[in-house]
């Protein structure tokens, strides 16, 4: 049984411009000790999905339906007090920008102590000792001194490590990392990813990694879900997704990764067009305005997320054989995709 199971999740927000349907029928599952990558452009609904798991999207203007099963209980229908006991303690979350995600007026150590003492009735000095241990375990040098630092006194990578220390201080079952490396320098990115991987291996924490960077996914995920316009378009184990992707959108994503080993003549091919409006999405398949292969039925009806083979789900009207053929010919044209 999976640790976390999202079933047919819908999240929409009433705004003055209309109803924004941010998440439309997403189903995902996450197993213990595994890393699930959720990939997509800005506005694909990946962050909203992640934040909805722990109830951070429960705004007055939000409508949330579906189920998020964790430990035999549904987090969507759970009351605020019970959900709060899970949030931070059993499911922790880290965010994109570690500077703005830490409170500028409180010492980093204090912010972690607060997280511990919110969930466990421990004396201040024990919480402090555990905080220092947590800071040490994420590789922050001289954690005793860093305990008293303010966020602005730390570097970006250091801050993200502190965020991870805060998230992991209570040994959660699940870590949701929402673009954890996007705001960091490239060299620091690798360190932070390695750290998350090491903690997953040491503590057995399952990781849900939200990112727009397929390179990060290739680096550390077991399973991958590709999201677009609030839907999952393709879902597969990592190797399958990189070797035999079957959705034109995934092909586009793979083609737009810069590769150092690609021949100079092989130009980057970004996906034409821009993500659709979530207030008035296109009719039929939501990707059809940007899809180079649009079959006629894609303009009429939205394809279901259907298994192309066991464990590999694709939301596309093109026949499986046709998709395999198209991918092979793309690979022929673009050596970088091999």
């Amino acid at each position, binding site marked *: 049984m999976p640790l976390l199971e999202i079933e047919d999740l819908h999240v929409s927000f009433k705004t003055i411009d209309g109803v924004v349907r941010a998440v439309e029928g997403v189903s995902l599952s996450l197993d213990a000790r595994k890393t699930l990558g959720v990939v997509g452009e800005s506005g694909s609904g990946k962050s909203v999905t992640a934040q909805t798991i722990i109830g951070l999207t429960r705004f007055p203007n939000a409508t949330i339906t579906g189920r998020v099963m964790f430990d035999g209980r549904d987090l969507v229908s759970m009351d605020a007090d019970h959900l*709060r*006991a899970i*949030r931070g303690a059993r499911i*922790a979350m880290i965010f994109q920008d570690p500077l703005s995600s830490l409170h500028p*007026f409180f010492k980093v150590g204090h912010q972690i102590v607060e997280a511990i003492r919110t969930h466990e009735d421990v004396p201040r000095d024990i919480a402090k000792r555990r905080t220092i241990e947590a800071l040490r375990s994420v590789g922050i040098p001289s954690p005793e001194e860093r305990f008293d630092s303010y966020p602005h006194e730390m570097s970006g990578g250091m801050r993200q490590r502190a965020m991870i220390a805060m998230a992991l201080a209570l040994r959660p079952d699940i870590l949701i990392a929402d673009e954890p490396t996007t705001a960091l320098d490239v060299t620091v990115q690798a360190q932070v990813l390695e750290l998350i991987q090491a903690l997953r291996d040491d503590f057995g924490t399952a990781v849900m990694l939200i990112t727009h960077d397929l390179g990060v996914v290739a680096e550390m995920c077991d399973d991958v879900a590709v999201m677009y316009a609030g839907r999952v378009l393709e879902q597969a184990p990592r190797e399958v997704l990189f070797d035999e992707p079957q959705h034109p959108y995934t092909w586009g994503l793979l083609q737009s990764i810069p590769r150092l080993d690609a021949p100079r003549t092989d130009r980057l091919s970004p996906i034409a067009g821009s993500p659709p409006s979530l207030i008035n999405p296109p009719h039929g398949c939501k990707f059809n305005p940007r899809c180079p292969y649009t079959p006629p039925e894609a303009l009429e009806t939205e394809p279901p997320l259907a298994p192309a083979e066991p464990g590999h789900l694709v939301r596309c009207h093109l026949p499986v054989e046709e998709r395999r053929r198209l991918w092979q010919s793309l690979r022929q044209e673009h050596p970088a995709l091999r």
Partner: protein
Amino acid sequence: MGAYIVRRVLWAILLLLVVSFITFVIFDVFPSADPAAIRAGRNATPALVHQIRINLGLNKPFYTQFWIYLKGLVEHFNLGYSYYNSESVKSEIFSRLPATISLTIGGFIVWMLIGIPVGVVSAIRPRSIFDRVLMGGSLVAISAPVYFLGLVSLFLFAKGTGQLQWFGAAGSYVPISQNVGQWFNSLILPWVTLAAAFAAFYARMTRGNLIETMNEDYIRTARAKGLREAKVISKHGLRAALTPIVTMAGMDIGLLLGGAILTEIVFNVPGVGRYAYNAITNSDLPAIQGTVLFGAFFIVFANLVVDILYAFLDPRVTYG
């Protein structure tokens, strides 16, 4: 930090010098009633007026007068003597200080006690009926001048003159040392009148700041930690939202002193504000100077305190 404070104090002294010089220049350049003639009374002979003018030193050029004034101030902390009744300005101001301090400190407390909670309540439920009523009411309070609000409150609530005989009327002020109950009762209407516009303005500012703060990433982090919403607001939200309010309040204390003048007149409170008003109507330059310096001193002092306080409130601020 020490060097910063010394530098600020030196600037403050310079500023006070400039302020008193400007007051002198304004008094000299702009037409005003002749203090000697006022002092001499209705049926005075020109010789008497002339004699008074010489006695007060009004025949000397204004820069000489300024120099004499400055010397007295620096050497003896002497604010001079009233043209009108020869009383020492310093002792006149100090004897009226308790009334003004009672009024402004009480006004400040009412200002904060109403302004901040109203702003917070509105910010927690933006666009609710509660929010709309409070913000609409605050707009009325901001728009109503002190003298209008003061007279309306006297008409409605003052003992003797009011429709509801609840609180002390104009002129009922007694020193706190004499009768605490009456002191408090007599100041309720002045406090509320003085604080109303400030409280209303700060309610709107607190609301705006808090709504903005509650959208910050670190508030999301606080929620993700599992903190109660009440604690997210009261600790993480207010800590950030109120810091700029404290700075603003320090600067606005000067405006509160200005409002205190009108309030003291409307409610007949024997304080420095009313003294300043009388000084202006009597062309009593030493008294005007004294009250202007007094006001300027408190504004500068409040600003200094706030700036120092800010370094404690916001750890990112350092003074070099």
